[in-house]
């Protein structure tokens, strides 16, 4: 029998192969059979979680509460020094200089990445914008969010900061950042489910030591960060409480 591993669908496409390499590394290190299943969107991933099909997940912080409180997952590790931050940006030709200048009916482009959308909407609140008075423009990728802005189809776009910073110079030169979040405590987390819980200590031990050898460092590089850092149960509970305050 093999356990099922999945990654939050908002992973950076450049790191897709990295997750497969990581899964191979993890199986070799632990001698546990693990199948990596990548879902195209949050809806299909949520369906798999609800059906109890997932045992290991690199989870979006938005899903942490459901995974811990409803499905009995516990945290393992997070990417060291990596936090989820959002940016709201406009076309450089926009007359908007401050969020307070937005009016109801503002066209807001975003992806289905739930924590980034939430942070972006919080940054629009000082302009009295909310889900009830914006015109939502849903996009499959952040590149498409940028395109909506460049074509004048959206007034403001919500981006994962990491992705915005990685946009081409040509695209970024036509966009202007209005607000960049500085929250620091919202992050993705690798979490383990009940069926696999007796393997928690073994996996944790391998992960926190991963950067101590060259092969491990190479795999981490393919994921886009330098080390895993242990997440204590209370740190996860704190993030769940924090997310809870932000969802209203």
């Amino acid at each position: 029998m093999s356990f099922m591993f999945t990654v939050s669908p908002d992973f950076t496409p450049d790191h897709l192969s990295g997750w497969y390499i990581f899964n191979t590394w993890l199986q070799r290190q632990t001698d546990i059979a693990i199948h990596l299943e990548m879902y195209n969107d949050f809806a299909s991933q949520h369906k798999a979680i609800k059906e109890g099909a997932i045992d290991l997940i690199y989870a979006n912080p938005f899903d942490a509460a459901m995974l811990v409180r409803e499905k009995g997952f516990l945290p393992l590790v997070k990417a060291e020094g990596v936090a989820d931050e959002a940016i709201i940006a406009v076309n450089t030709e926009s007359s908007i200089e401050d969020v307070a200048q937005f009016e109801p009916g503002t066209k807001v482009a975003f992806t289905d990445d739930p924590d980034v959308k939430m942070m972006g909407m919080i940054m629009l609140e000082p302009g009295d914008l909310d889900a009830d008075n914006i015109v939502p423009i849903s996009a499959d990728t952040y590149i498409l969010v940028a395109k909506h802005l460049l074509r004048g189809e959206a007034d403001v776009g919500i981006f994962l900061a990491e992705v915005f910073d990685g946009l081409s110079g040509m695209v970024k030169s036509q966009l202007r950042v209005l607000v960049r979040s500085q929250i620091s405590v919202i992050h993705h987390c690798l979490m383990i489910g009940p069926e696999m819980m007796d393997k928690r200590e073994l996996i944790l031990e391998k992960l926190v030591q991963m950067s101590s050898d060259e092969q491990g460092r190479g795999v981490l590089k393919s994921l886009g960060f330098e080390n895993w850092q242990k997440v204590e149960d209370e740190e996860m509970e704190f993030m769940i409480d924090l997310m809870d305050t932000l969802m209203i």
Partner: protein
Amino acid sequence: MWANREPFLEILNSELNMIGDMQPEDIAGDYKEVTLDLYNSVNRKILYTDIETPYPDGKLIVSTTDPEGNITNVNKSFIEMSGYSEDELIGAPHSILRHPDMPPAAFKDLWDTVKKGDKWQGFVKNIRKDGGYYWVKATVIPNIRNGKLAGYTSVRRKPSRTNIDACSKLYPTMF
């Protein structure tokens, strides 16, 4: 000798939880003075000015307290906006931020709500150590651990000017 340390710890804790009067040397600009009845008949002399510090874009002010409302953790934004050091904040009651323009009914509603286990959200005018003020949109939730109340988490975000203006008109009518 160590068997007797608990009474000393209790005294130390009670001193840590005391909330001192605001001091004129900490205040920036002209100020007014008032004494607030904070809780359990604890009074605090408040020195306050008309100087507003705008809430910074993109930041959250985060703190946690124990079940009695004494601060157990603060983030960097909390320290920056309140003007207090981390050492001054940890162990202090959260009412160290209480501004005299805030109607007591708002805090009663807050405590009544969170003690029932529900979330509370509202707009709050907080006082800084330097006597100035800042407005926040605050959300407070109970932290439940193993089925028991472990404390509260309070997260503040930037309010809109429309909401600040509305509360500035409403709150004086609630005294």
